[in-house]
């Protein structure tokens, strides 16, 4: 059991980070803390994807001498998987824009309610 946890520690960290973020999104009352939780949640997913790409002893996925010299067989096992990295580049862009929109909305909320505490806003809306 102990070995199982230690040998896959990256996945365990991803789960722990994600749950911390999840808790902050649901449980915290302050809107900025919620956004921090949201970021943590998304970053945990990046960690998960990047973990799946890693290989023991793998090297950068760049084939030496490029295009025309592809005659020799390529040992796929010697290279780490580039695709999850590419996916995460896109996901990072999405996450940055989500963060931007969320912060802009928080500014709008602050302008109207002059507070960032959820219960105070709900009290004002009554």
């Amino acid at each position, binding site marked *: 059991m102990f070995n199982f946890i230690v040998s896959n520690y990256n996945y365990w960290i991803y789960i722990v980070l994600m749950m911390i973020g999840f808790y902050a999104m649901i449980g915290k009352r302050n809107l900025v803390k919620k956004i921090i939780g949201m970021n943590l949640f998304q970053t945990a997913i990046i960690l998960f994807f990047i973990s799946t790409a890693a290989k023991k002893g793998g090297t950068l996925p760049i084939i030496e001498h490029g295009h025309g010299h592809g005659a020799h067989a390529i040992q796929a096992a010697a290279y780490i998987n580039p695709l999850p990295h590419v996916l995460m580049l896109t996901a990072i862009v999405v996450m940055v824009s989500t963060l931007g929109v969320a912060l802009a909305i928080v500014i709008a909320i602050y302008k109207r*309610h002059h507070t960032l505490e959820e219960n105070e806003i709900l009290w004002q809306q009554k």
Partner: protein
Amino acid sequence: MIPQSPVLVVVIPLIFAFLTLLFGWFRRSFCYPITLVALSLSFFASLHTLHIVITTGTIHYYLGSWKPPWGIEYVVDYLNAFVLVIVSFVSLMVAIYSKRSVEQELPEKIVYFYCIFLLQVTGFLGIVITGDLFNLYVFLEIASLAGYALIAVGEDGAPFASFNYVIFGTIGACFYLLGVGYLYIVTGSLNIADLSQILPNLYHSKVVLVAFAFFLVGVSIKMALFPLHVWLPDAYTYAPSTVSALLAPLMTKVGAYVMIRVMFTVFKPYFSIELIPATTILGWMAAAAILFGAILALAQIDLKRMLTYILVSEVGYITLGVALANRNGLTGAILHILNDAFMMLALFLVVGAIMYRSGKREISQLRYLHRKMPFTMAVFVIAALSVIGIPPTCGFFSKWYLILGAIDANKWIFVAVLLVSSLLNVILFFRCIENAYLEPVAEHSSVGSELAITREESPLSMLIPTLIAGAGIMSFGVLSGKIISTIIQFALPAGF
């Protein structure tokens, strides 16, 4: 020669979104015609796509000629093409309608509004057309981000409602992304067609089960299925009326489309129905959505808020059709995607028009509206009859298929739920119709009160889309047999 229309459907609104920004700097009044041009072109492209699909079958469009599973591919079959036409048509109608309403509600933000409006439509169309799971995630986020921004510019409570939507929407999208990741670990592919071939050998793997669960929960949040609907009523109530009219008919329908895709194309029906009890759980959730949506709607005094709860209940209908998982049930679900898009379009357009003219939207304030806005209220009544499910309107036919499906599946309790919800809808809408059409006896006798009411029909640019939506509800009802025999029976996923 490969037909180019599938890619044009998405690319046109995307490019025009940035053109609106560019031309908007010179003159604000350019934005509206540019948006109309973009959405009409996109609508014609999607009609052309549907035509090609009907004449020659499924279209595969390889972006940049990269062959799948490495490249991203657009796949258009009957189901896609059908939803594409609905999305592009509804958004065109809302765009026509938007002019006066946006000028009144958001006078300084017209340029940005139309830019984000077009991005929103791009997101919807992209979700529907793509044949790649990760690409779908990206489009899902484009649509959601645009939605957050559009909702946040609404009235007083809007930013806070939008913030809640951001939190929920992000959880939904991240769950979807995790599902994609888990499937990628076990299969090494992101292409939907490729996945559906590789997956059957792996159906007993726990990773696949987890992926499926993540997909379902993520999509359920995005389409606001009952226990996960909490973000929807606030967000759609406080949003500007044009935005509610765009998001309410489309976001939930696009979510329903993704659900059908994931359950019956990425995973085979055998997996979703027999191997795990997904359809049973979904069925009960859908039944709860139908009942609680209608019951919560009863408690509302604000007309727009009542409609948002009815929307929650309508999402339940579509999900119920999916969960019944037989031929009639799925036919009902897919037909309801069309019908409900038009019903919600009509209802939210009417509420927007009432808001535009009187600034009021509480049910008790609807009095004399049938004389002030006769055409608008006529459309409201048609849409109301359709939500209730009264024959010549289209709502009857999808409900009919849903009930047939429930009988086929031997789930009599769902039949009862469907009938009870019809009764609840009768109460809901007759409350509004009574307030609008029947005049109080006491005021009848007082002299002069009748003369005080002048006709204030909404402006033509708002009236025409509303009337088209109403005419659509009637004609889809009459033509529903034809729609099913030419499109929907081929749109059913393989195996039904």
